[in-house]
């Protein structure tokens, strides 16, 4: 037996689990080798010391942490998931105090009202466009402007229907142009609208002094979407007259 063997068997030596014959050989060696005796002593002391280092217990909330994790990840039924979702949604509201809740309850209808007002304003302005200086008559036959400012189709006035322009940008432009730039029937154009609602200037009847107005109008008409006229329930190509600074309401 040499020191290397002692090193290899050191675990068994410390545990006292050597066979009798091996133990005798080890003892014989240790009796003559101070270095190995010292090594075994220190190993034993180290082992005792390591065993005496205290550890920690898990905190009391550890069980709750684990069980909750399991609940969340594996155990939930659909009903429980929905319930939890509902609680997650409602819980923040429960956290609010009464004042916050009151502010919320009051401000919600106000916000809704404001939204409706803005929406209605846009709708009304579209509707009112028939009465703010535009000739907006629609027919599926080319229109003719007559000196009184009315529009007439080849089939006569009965075939002409007033219609609103469904493009706020176009309405705004024409309104502002009517107020500031144009004089009298400075601009009178016939607009062609196909059955898909795309418009273009078909004919310029009155010419404005300022060509930029006509150009701008042309661009706006090309980019606007129109409501196509219907005949017998089917969409048809149509025409309408558009004039600046005129107030003519049919009927």
């Amino acid at each position, binding site marked *: 037996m040499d020191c290397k063997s002692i090193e290899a068997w050191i675990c068994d030596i410390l545990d006292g689990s050597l066979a009798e014959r091996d133990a005798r050989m080890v003892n014989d060696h240790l009796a003559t080798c101070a270095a190995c005796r010292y090594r075994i002593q220190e190993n034993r002391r180290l082992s005792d010391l390591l065993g005496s280092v205290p550890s920690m217990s*898990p905190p009391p909330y550890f069980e709750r942490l684990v069980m909750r994790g399991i609940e969340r*990840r594996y155990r939930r039924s659909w009903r429980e998931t929905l319930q939890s979702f509902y609680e997650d949604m409602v819980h923040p509201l429960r956290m609010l105090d009464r004042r916050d809740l009151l502010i919320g309850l009051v401000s919600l209808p106000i916000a809704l009202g404001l939204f409706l007002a803005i929406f209605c304003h846009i709708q009304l302005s579209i509707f009112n466009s028939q009465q703010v200086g535009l000739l907006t008559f629609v027919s599926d036959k080319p229109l003719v402007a007559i000196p009184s400012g009315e529009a007439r189709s080849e089939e006569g006035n009965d075939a002409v229907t007033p219609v609103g322009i469904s493009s706020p940008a176009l309405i705004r432009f024409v309104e502002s142009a009517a107020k500031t730039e144009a004089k009298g029937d400075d601009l009178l154009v016939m607009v062609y609208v196909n059955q898909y609602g795309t418009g273009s200037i078909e004919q310029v009847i009155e010419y404005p002094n300022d060509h930029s107005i006509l150009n701008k109008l042309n661009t706006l008409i090309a980019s606007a979407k129109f409501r196509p006229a219907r005949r017998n329930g089917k969409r048809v190509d149509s025409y309408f007259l558009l004039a600046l600074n005129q107030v003519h309401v049919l009927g």
Partner: protein
Amino acid sequence: MYGHEITLAENSGNAKHDDVDISLVARFQAGDTTAFEDIFTLYKDTVFRLAFRLLGDREEALDLSQDVFLTLYKELRRFRRSSRFKTWIYRIVVNRALNRLRLWKRQRRHQTISLDALPKYHKGESIGASLPAADRSPYETLYGQDVARRIHQALALLPMDQRAAIIMRDMEGFSYEEIAEALEINLGTVKSRIARGREELRRHLHDVLRTACPL
């Protein structure tokens, strides 16, 4: 509940303990999820302690232990008893801990770690602060803290495989067979890792060993 039986099991040896494990696992696999609570009660301390010893950080140990039990809950139905249940759990703990340690090592490869850097145990205190102080003089308390700190520093210097084996054997009192099963190595390798680890520790703790008595 098994609280009473656990004590009996621990007192009457591993065989009894294994029987309890088998019956709990069987109950769980038969659909009785309350068996998991008993398994948790039985193993929470060991799992947490082992995780804490391996990682040296309380919060990390808590996180890892939770992770282990969640994995256990998921995988328990597939447990086929080819190994002992408890060593299966220890294997999960050790593997997860070693993965984390490897990750840390990669992340901190370019950092210099001072030997005075304390492993954080709880709110920045060393493990020595958790020693029971009632029957100790202030000197003994300080001494215990210092020794525990030195031990953990020395353990942190060991290769991970040796550290795991030494912690399981000398600090947690596992048998060689349990360690071999948990680390999936043979008995000879377990013993050689422990022997080499102890030699390394002896070198680092030479001065402590000359004066130290068990804490």
